[in-house]
């Protein structure tokens, strides 16, 4: 259990006990959320606002023969019906995806997945818009669909993307990393090679707030204001400018409170574009908000990685190499969000936390008749898949060698003196003491006692399992020279202004979807300047009010924008030093900083606080030559490298031998995310991620039948875990600051989602004595695995 310092726990504690900087502090944003006073996109109400609804394809693959909208148009409350043909006239029927592919905004030629956008109705109210959808008559000519990615490249597979010039198959890309020859050589001389096929099924981020927007095109001044559920408002604005030809200064994207993103809200969805067009056509604001089923069926999914992993080792259990082939199902359009150079995201961190000689991966992306998107869901650009692969492989190896999985990991973990560590696929891990973290997790869990208990229970016919996972994340994308999305570099800006009274406003390019930015970023600035966090206003989510940057995903806010906030605060501190020098009539070099004030070296009583300096900066004080008044600064932070948070997780499960039901009894998570800014927020992030991990391991999947019907279009079928499926989390931490980061923080948003699924699956396999079964480990699938084996899910 994490040690909790009670006194500093609450934001309502006496001011003297609240941290001026890092420490446990209740979130500044929570009073409005717990009072129901958050302001989400669906709360936006504008005079004369109309409502949009999307007509979606009932079929996974079909040619559109005709669309008749006349009945819908004559509905008394309908103001506009937009089809692909209409958009074609505007050059907007297709839009670029985040992976440089194109995606239909509204289908013109064919529909390519069930739930694809076919037409958009704008009506006076939400109900009329949906009623009118039923009045649109679309004639489809059904085509055979490609549902199973394993058949996407068959010679006779129907070609899904016949809209693309010269396409004769469903192949998207081949990509590889590592050294194939060196890896083959290592495998050739290994004593033991274990091979395992595994599927990381299609899952969905399923944020509680679905996606939506309100588009308001001012017909007079031509300014478009767009309230959107987006994790990346600036990137969206630039893309709208590029795609729709709207001048960028005339677009304002506002991302208000966001009810969860998890990657689901990175991309641009057809509904947003349609709402904009609807507003242009009707000269009224248009709101469009998805239903739950639309969100689950049509927006960015995650994973769908068919992996064949191999691990090579000596008989004693020294891991030599890892080799993997992946078939990646990207759906009907390649809409994956990831840095351009990396079509498989950061999957090539699959060498994990181990000191190995060689590694190689080969990834092939294919189109299928399923919803597009991919990468989403708190995965740090496919690190989740990578960690799952290697952590399952290590357990398979332990099983093969008859070794204890904890010992096997301990023997192979990177050692502290190896950092910074160049792995075999091109990453430079920044810092870590992996064995210490694993040891801490084992101690917290009482590993040896658990193993003894397990043996006793087994003797009584009870199935108890202990599963471990050790993960290395790679987050904080990223260095501009390597990383961009659609040509936009992944650097982030930050602006800080200290007001005359010593209060401050910090403006961020990243956008919170629940991560607590308003608190964390105030604390970062507070730590640097000694201004209490409650005196610092954090502004984010509005492109007219914040500097440019690429947004929040891939755990990048603290590593990138957090660094920017620290850097900009240091700039202000430096300027404050000059001003303090003028105030005290000494040279700046004679001053020394102590949190909140500059004092004269050797004379700590002679000092000026940051608040006094702020007032002087705005006052009549004579400033040194070349120094401007006021107290503010801006910066753009270009990360020199990614950061590599890591952790050791341990899960204990009990499996009912008669029914296959899995109960997660305990979960111990020891995270190292470097410097800990607000431990309470970190714990919240870890709790959520662990719950996600239990969900993916045990119940979540977007399934399809052979015709391409999505079978998981509601929360009755797409199961997300609740407090009742999850244990009381037991957290611990180690702190290894990142050496290249201004404050040593590594980011933690996705660590737990990335690290936990493997621990749960490893525990279940340990309990039932089966080498591998694919997620989700529902009671039925566990029981099948215990009785002769279970097929990969569809």
């Amino acid at each position, binding site marked *: 259990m994490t040690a909790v310092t009670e006194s500093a726990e609450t934001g309502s504690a006496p001011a003297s006990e609240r941290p001026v900087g890092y420490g446990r502090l209740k979130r500044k944003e929570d009073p409005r959320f717990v009072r129901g006073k958050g302001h989400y996109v669906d709360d936006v109400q504008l005079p004369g606002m109309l409502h949009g609804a999307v007509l979606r394809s009932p079929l996974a693959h079909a040619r559109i023969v005709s669309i008749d909208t006349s009945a819908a148009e004559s509905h008394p409350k309908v103001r506009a019906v937009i089809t692909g043909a209409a958009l074609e006239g505007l050059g907007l029927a297709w839009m670029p995806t985040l992976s440089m592919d194109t995606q239909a905004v509204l289908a013109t030629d064919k529909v390519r997945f069930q739930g694809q956008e076919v037409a958009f109705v704008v009506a006076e109210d939400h109900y009329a818009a949906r009623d009118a959808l039923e009045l649109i008559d679309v004639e489809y000519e059904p085509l055979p669909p490609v549902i199973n990615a394993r058949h996407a490249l068959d010679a006779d597979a129907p070609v899904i993307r016949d809209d693309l010039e010269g396409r004769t198959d469903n192949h998207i890309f081949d990509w590889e990393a590592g050294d194939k020859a060196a890896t083959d050589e290592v495998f050739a001389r290994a004593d033991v090679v274990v091979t395992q096929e595994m599927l990381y099924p299609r899952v969905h981020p399923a944020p509680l707030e679905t996606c939506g927007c309100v588009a308001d095109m001012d017909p007079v001044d031509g300014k478009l204001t767009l309230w959107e559920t987006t994790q990346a408002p600036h990137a969206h604005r630039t893309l709208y400018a590029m795609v729709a030809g709207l001048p960028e200064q005339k677009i304002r994207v506002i991302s208000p409170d966001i009810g969860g993103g998890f990657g689901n809200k990175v991309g641009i969805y057809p509904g947003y574009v349609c709402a904009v067009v609807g507003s242009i056509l009707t000269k009224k604001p248009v709101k469009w908000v998805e239903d739950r*089923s639309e969100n689950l069926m049509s927006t960015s999914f995650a994973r769908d990685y068919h992996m064949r992993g191999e691990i090579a080792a000596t008989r004693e259990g020294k891991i030599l190499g890892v080799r993997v082939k992946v078939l990646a199902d990207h759906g009907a359009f390649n809409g994956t969000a990831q840095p351009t150079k990396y079509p498989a995201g950061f999957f090539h961190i699959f060498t994990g936390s181990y000191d190995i000689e060689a590694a190689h991966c080969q990834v092939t992306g294919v189109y299928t008749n399923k919803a597009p998107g991919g990468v989403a869901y708190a995965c740090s650009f496919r690190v989740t898949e990578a960690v799952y692969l290697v952590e399952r492989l290590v357990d398979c190896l332990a099983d093969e060698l008859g070794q204890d999985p904890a010992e096997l990991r301990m023997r192979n973990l990177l050692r502290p003196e190896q950092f910074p560590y160049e792995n075999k696929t091109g990453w430079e891990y920044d810092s870590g003491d992996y064995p210490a973290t694993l040891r801490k997790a084992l101690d917290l869990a009482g590993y040896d006692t658990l193993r003894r208990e397990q043996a006793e229970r087994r003797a009584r016919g009870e199935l108890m399992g202990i599963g471990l996972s050790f993960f290395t994340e790679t987050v904080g994308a990223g260095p501009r020279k390597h990383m961009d999305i659609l040509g936009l570099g992944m650097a982030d800006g930050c602006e800080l202004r200290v007001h005359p009274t010593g209060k401050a406003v910090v403006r961020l390019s990243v956008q919170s979807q629940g991560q607590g930015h308003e608190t964390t970023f105030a604390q970062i600035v507070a730590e640097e300047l000694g201004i209490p966090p409650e005196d610092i206003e954090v502004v984010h989510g509005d492109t007219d009010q914040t500097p440019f940057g690429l947004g929040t995903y891939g755990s990048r806010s603290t590593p990138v924008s957090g660094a920017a906030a620290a850097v900009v605060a240091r700039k202000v501190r430096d300027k404050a030093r000059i001003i303090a020098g003028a105030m005290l009539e000494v040279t700046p070099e004679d001053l020394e900083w102590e949190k909140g004030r500059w004092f004269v070296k050797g004379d700590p009583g002679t000092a000026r606080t940051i608040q006094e300096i702020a007032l002087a900066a705005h006052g009549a004080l004579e400033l040194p030559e070349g120094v401007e008044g006021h107290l503010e600064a801006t910066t753009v932070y270009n990360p020199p490298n990614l950061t590599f948070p890591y952790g050791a997780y341990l899960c204990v499960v009990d499996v009912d031998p008669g029914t296959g*039901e899995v109960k997660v009894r305990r979960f111990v998570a020891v995270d190292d995310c470097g410097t800990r800014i607000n431990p309470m927020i970190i714990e919240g992030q870890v709790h959520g991620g662990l719950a996600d991990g239990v969900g993916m391991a045990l119940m979540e999947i977007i399934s399809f*039948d052979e015709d391409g019907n999505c079978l998981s279009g509601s929360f*009755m*079928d797409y199961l997300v875990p609740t407090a009742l*499926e999850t244990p009381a989390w037991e957290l611990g931490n180690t702190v290894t600051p990142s050496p290249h980061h201004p404050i040593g923080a590594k980011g933690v948003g996705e660590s737990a989602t990335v690290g936990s699924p493997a621990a749960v699956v490893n525990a279940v396999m340990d309990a039932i004595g089966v080498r591998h079964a694919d997620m989700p480990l529902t009671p*039925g699938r566990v029981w099948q695995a215990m009785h002769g084996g279970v097929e990969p899910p569809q």
Partner: protein
Amino acid sequence: MTVRSYGFGAIALEAAVQVPATFEYRRASSVEDALALLERFGEEARVIAGGHSLLPMMKLRLARPEFLVDINDLHELDYLRLEGGELLIGALTRHRTLLESELVGRLFPIFHDAERVIADPPVRNRGTIGGSLCQADPAEDLSAVCTAVRAVAVILGPGGRRSVPMQEFYRGPYETAVGAGELLVEIRVPVRPNAGSAYRKVERKTGDWAVAAAGGALSLADDGRIGWAGIGLAAVSTSLAGYRRVEEALVGREPTDELFTEAGRIAAEDCDPLSDLRGTEEYKRHLAGELTHRALTLAAERARAAGGTGGKDA
């Protein structure tokens, strides 16, 4: 629209609409008023009780009633009482009331077993036993429970009042003996001496519909043998009843583990499950046996305990 499995969630949504079609709405002020409204609006009218089955179906436009007759003001249908050797349950009794009733828990612990695993507290606060039985989803838990305890449904309509045993009440998936213009008003459960009952369900997560579930009720004769037995299974067949062979195998026998294993084996044979996302046919068949065994074992334990604690005079 294809129904692929039970529990209306498991439906392939061919169009993602979650807004109901237009309908008219009336709030009935008495049972007579409700019957009059139903008669007036005819075939296109539907009763709405807790709304936790009907509203989701309407939002998905799987149901499009033109008129809704709301019976939530009919407090005269919200009761639990013991009368003439029967437990009488008003049709508007909420899940929560059943779960919190000491009387129900003492006489029929099977109801408490089931209620604990039906949906979640917000659904249980509103959902009613009448709505549950009338929905007649083959995965519905209370129908299986009522089948096991041999409940009788009391139906009121233009033709008067009639009583229908559970086996006949349930006519197949989403179909019951309640005709147009009729109202289910009461459920009557006979109280037996030395009786015990239990319900066992496997679900993928809390609040999920059953992958499979089994309810068992039995009473012990003075010689310790099983005097009477009732079985109801959910989610493993289009029918909730049909376990007569199991019941026959139990009566007159010692309540042993072997007997209950045998009972489970017959239940597994006699059920007729479909493979779906909740599990394969093979798994569900296995569960039918396993859960029947577990429910009967617990029911017998409870019957023995009831025998010793005055259950006889209940």
